[in-house]
């Protein structure tokens, strides 16, 4: 196997609160190959978004990178300087956030915000950069880009704003695009279009994607491999089809079973949904042992006392005492 584009190895992210230090994420390890789409799935507070921020060098206090390494293209970047991060962000790594209105500058026309990428990272002149910004808008299928480059973010719809974000993120042809819940704020039919656009452009340019979402179906649909996070740890990582067909961790199995799936009722009649008991634990009170144990139907004394180690699977891994 050739060297991966991104390797996250045993990453720990710490949270300081009231003089105490908590691990908001720990032992996070995954690799993304060149041009590969990789999904990180989990509920709010599981640590998926801060993992993405760490890969972008955007963690700010009270969050910080603890132990572990982040390697991009052979370069260790977890403790890179602010200047190096500014070079990397935009040119090597692009990012799309959930709410485009808060990620875009409301006081600057969108064309200028795209053009800035070419000026900062590729030493283009402003006039050349504006021409290229218009092309970039055309590529993300914004109608009449020659007029739209002069628009301010508030003049665009949610879907159009997210297209502008994609144009900015992909402007310098980065090797990796990080998309953190890119369509959660959008309507379903618009979501489908944005996902198609994003995956299509990345496939054409050979850009790898780190897709972060709470929607297992969405991620499994567009990514080759998927990792599921729960309470700060990756509990399972498998190819997308296997996550649904043969989930190995009780949490993943619970998630797959608990969602009403379109077409199920017609086939099998209305079945009572399988519930996952209990609630998601908070960062300051993660349970001892396996963090899923209070909600797990199969928990034993071992699960309550000892944190499970990773068990290798043919193409992935699972972190559970009983499902190795």
């Amino acid at each position: 196997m050739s060297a991966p584009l991104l390797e996250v190895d045993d990453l720990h992210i710490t949270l300081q609160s009231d003089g105490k230090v908590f691990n908001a994420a720990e032992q996070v390890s995954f690799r993304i190959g060149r041009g590969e789409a990789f999904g990180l799935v989990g509920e709010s507070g599981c640590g998926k978004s801060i993992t993405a921020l760490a890969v972008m060098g955007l963690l700010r206090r009270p969050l910080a990178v603890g132990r572990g390494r982040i390697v991009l293209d052979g370069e260790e970047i977890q403790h890179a300087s602010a200047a190096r991060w500014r070079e990397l962000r935009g040119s090597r790594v692009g990012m799309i956030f959930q709410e485009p209105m808060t990620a875009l500058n409301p006081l600057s026309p969108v064309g200028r915000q795209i053009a800035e990428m070419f000026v900062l990272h590729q030493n283009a002149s402003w006039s050349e950069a504006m021409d290229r910004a218009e092309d970039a808008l055309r590529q993300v299928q914004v109608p009449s880009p020659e007029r739209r480059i002069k628009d301010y973010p508030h003049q665009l719809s949610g879907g159009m704003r997210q297209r502008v974000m994609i144009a900015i993120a992909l402007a310098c042809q980065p090797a990796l695009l990080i998309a953190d819940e890119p369509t959660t704020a959008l309507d379903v039919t618009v979501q489908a279009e944005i996902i198609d656009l994003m995956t299509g452009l990345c496939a054409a340019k050979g850009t790898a994607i780190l897709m972060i979402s709470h929607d297992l179906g969405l991620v499994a649909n567009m990514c080759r491999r998927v990792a599921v996070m729960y309470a700060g740890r990756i509990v399972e990582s498998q190819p997308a089809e296997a996550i649904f067909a043969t989930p190995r961790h009780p949490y993943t199995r619970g998630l797959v079973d608990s969602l009403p799936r379109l077409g199920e009722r017609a086939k099998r009649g209305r079945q009572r949904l399988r519930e996952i008991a209990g609630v998601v634990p908070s960062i300051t009170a993660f349970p001892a042992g396996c963090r899923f144990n209070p909600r797990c139907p199969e928990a034993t004394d071992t699960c309550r006392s000892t944190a499970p180690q990773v068990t290798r699977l043919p193409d992935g891994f699972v972190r559970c005492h009983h499902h190795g």
Partner: protein
Amino acid sequence: MAEPLLQVDDLAVHFLVGSALKGGIRTLKAVDGVRLDVKPGECLGLVGESGCGKSTLALSIMGLVPPTRGRISLGGREISNQDRMERARQVQMVFQDPYASLNPRQTVRRTLADPLSLHGVTSRTERDHRVMDMLTKVGLRPDHADRYPHEFSGGQRQRIGIARALILQPRLVICDEPVSALDVSIRAQIINLLLELKDEMGLAYILISHDLGVVEHVSDRVAVMYLGRIVEQGSWQEIFEDPRHPYTRALIAAIPDPFHRADARVARAKAHGEIASALNPPPGCHFNPRCPMKAERCLVEAPTLEPVADGHRAACHFRDSTG
């Protein structure tokens, strides 16, 4: 056939927006000629994207937004002739965000007992008894009664929201996106609870949601709205197994499909472009700019809701061609 519990007839809700000095006053047709009914004990799923008018429709059924035209009657009587108290005993609402819809300064007991005292339950023991009974019904413990909303998790707060809606024993409950603000692993608990309570208390629901998986699971009948109008209506099987409006098909095609069950027909059904503004909807069929089946006729002539089969109606000129 049972007498409908709720009848909405040719309902329109228009808002005037803008100002006479800046560009003139324009009419926003949030709901434009909607007809539907809900029978006792039935769940009607109401599907559509933001701005389609589903929440305005819910608010006018609650009597919170006066209709511009048309009639809404509950239990055979028009709601404009009923006073607020009478309406509150028949129809209640569960909101999307359990963090925002509970009063942070009231204990659960007060949130649940206040409606009872307002509606004439004067005996304190009876109020207490009914509060405890309701807490148990929604899966909370009696000792939760003296806690404040911030002491609960999101799922528990939604249970409180449901308890508040049911404490007056209404016959119709409008659930507006009841699970979309909750963590994914909590949603099944709330969906199961809503279904249990429906059977146990003989409730009718209007379930507003954009999550088609949930709508298919819970609903008996489904109505699909687009820009203020109902574009298709039918039983859950008809809507999900034999959709006739291209917008319904586009909604189904937009659901991520990890099993690749989709065939070419579904891929073709995807909608393009964005939802038009309700201030300036396209002429003819409102869906025509995004429709893969658009023809000349769709640009000029607005289709009306016509029967496809008994109880299944679609507002499309091509409702009989399966695409």
